């Protein structure tokens, strides 16, 4: 009881953590660009990179799947420009054995994959995005420095550059059918992508994957507040923004949350529309067209918007099943970690506790409060030598 042996697989960064000063000279000179997962492919990062500027540890990492040297090719530019001599292509991942008194599982959550709801067009229609993609667009440190550029413009411009390169290639290879196809695409892109640059008419669709018998029956708890927040921030960035939230219920439970909801309507040009969205289509200018039932007016209506933001559900993380098996943890019916009814952060294994979204959808203050609570439980185990494990 209260005594665990853990084998942790430590991945290689290919950068010496004790030497790297995070100056960024390596990333500046690295010739390899790949889509930046942190920004959902809305911009690129280099093969040697930092997740985000303020990331801790403040050390760069080489992505072995895209680095030319680690893929067996020739490069080495980052090692050459690094003044701290921190790049180490020979670094190997290794296993570390730990002996611990208690374990806290705080593996968080995953954003619901909205391609599972094809009627919303996510993944097909360029201007239908997820809540986290919206966060990245709104962020001053994000791919557009906080400007709400439509994804059709961002991805369209990137595709135009790619097509220009492919056209040169096709011309060289004298591949006429491919050339014709590419030139047609180039014409279409040039005509359509710049028609509307900034998204000002925003639609938020709530309960995407949540409160849905097909996927998650539960409510994801924070998305109503999350969407209202995004609408308020969007208006701060662009005064002409008007937003519509399509909801079943507006769940704004928490200190100051009701007032926040009212503020959205009175100050931030946000309209609350009670009704489920049946389908999102697209007009020829790449504007999403939302078909919904307005339950207060008892009509089926359509609305053309600049951008649609989905409030994706809070799904349990994919790796939780494997982790639970490894630790002997029970999961509840939705695949969140099962907790004891009288001790809400204790799992079925004495000495293993959980907190945050690993145990269920929570907002940030709730996650923080739970984390402190789990820390207290873990400390009890450490300080009593395992005695404090009886429930």
């Amino acid at each position, binding site marked *: 009881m209260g005594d665990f042996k853990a084998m942790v697989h430590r991945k290689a*960064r290919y950068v010496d953590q004790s030497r790297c000063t995070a100056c960024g000279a390596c990333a500046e000179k690295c010739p390899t660009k790949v889509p930046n997962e942190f920004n959902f492919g809305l911009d690129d990062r280099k093969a040697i990179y930092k997740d985000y500027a303020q990331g801790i540890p403040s050390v760069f990492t080489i992505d072995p799947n895209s680095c030319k040297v680690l893929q067996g090719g020739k490069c080495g530019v980052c090692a050459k420009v690094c003044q701290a001599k921190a790049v180490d292509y020979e670094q190997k991942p290794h296993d570390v054995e730990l002996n611990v008194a208690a374990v806290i599982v*705080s593996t968080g959550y995953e954003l619901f994959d909205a391609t599972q709801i094809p009627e919303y067009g996510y993944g097909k229609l360029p201007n239908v995005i997820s809540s986290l993609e919206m966060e990245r667009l709104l962020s001053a440190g994000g791919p557009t420095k906080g400007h709400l550029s439509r994804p059709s413009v961002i991805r369209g411009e990137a595709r135009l550059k790619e097509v220009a390169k492919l056209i040169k290639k096709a011309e060289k290879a004298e591949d006429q059918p491919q050339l014709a196809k590419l030139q047609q695409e180039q014409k279409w892109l040039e005509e359509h992508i710049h028609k509307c640059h900034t998204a000002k008419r925003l639609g938020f669709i709530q309960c995407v994957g949540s409160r849905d018998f097909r996927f998650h029956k539960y409510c994801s708890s924070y998305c109503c507040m999350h969407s209202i927040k995004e609408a308020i*921030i969007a208006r701060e960035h662009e005064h002409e923004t008007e937003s519509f939230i399509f909801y079943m219920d507006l769940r704004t439970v928490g200190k100051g949350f009701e007032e926040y909801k009212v503020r959205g309507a009175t100050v931030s040009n946000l309209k609350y529309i009670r009704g489920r969205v049946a389908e999102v289509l697209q007009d020829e200018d790449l504007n999403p067209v939302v078909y919904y039932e307005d339950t207060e007016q008892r009509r089926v209506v359509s609305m053309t918007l600049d951008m649609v933001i989905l409030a994706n559900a809070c799904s349990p993380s994919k790796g939780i099943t494997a982790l639970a098996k490894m630790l002997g943890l029970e999961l509840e019916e939705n695949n969140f970690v099962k907790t004891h009814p009288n001790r809400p952060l204790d799992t079925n294994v004495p000495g293993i506790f959980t907190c*945050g979204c690993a145990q269920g959808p929570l907002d940030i203050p709730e996650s923080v409060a739970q984390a402190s609570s789990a820390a207290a439980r873990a400390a009890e185990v450490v300080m009593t030598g395992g005695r404090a494990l009886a429930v």
Partner: protein
Amino acid sequence: MASKEVLIIGGGIAGMQAALDLGEMGIKVHLVEKNPSIGGKMAQLDKTFPTNDCTI
């Protein structure tokens, strides 16, 4: 001799807060995170409700 250390799996907001609290108590923590930086989903958020202050 029983260990006096704690393993925290996941370095998002919950994992970080638990690690800080345990650290303040003088307990050694091993914080394991699969991504190159800690911070989790919260690092991707722009501002947080209801105060609209930035998370990072």
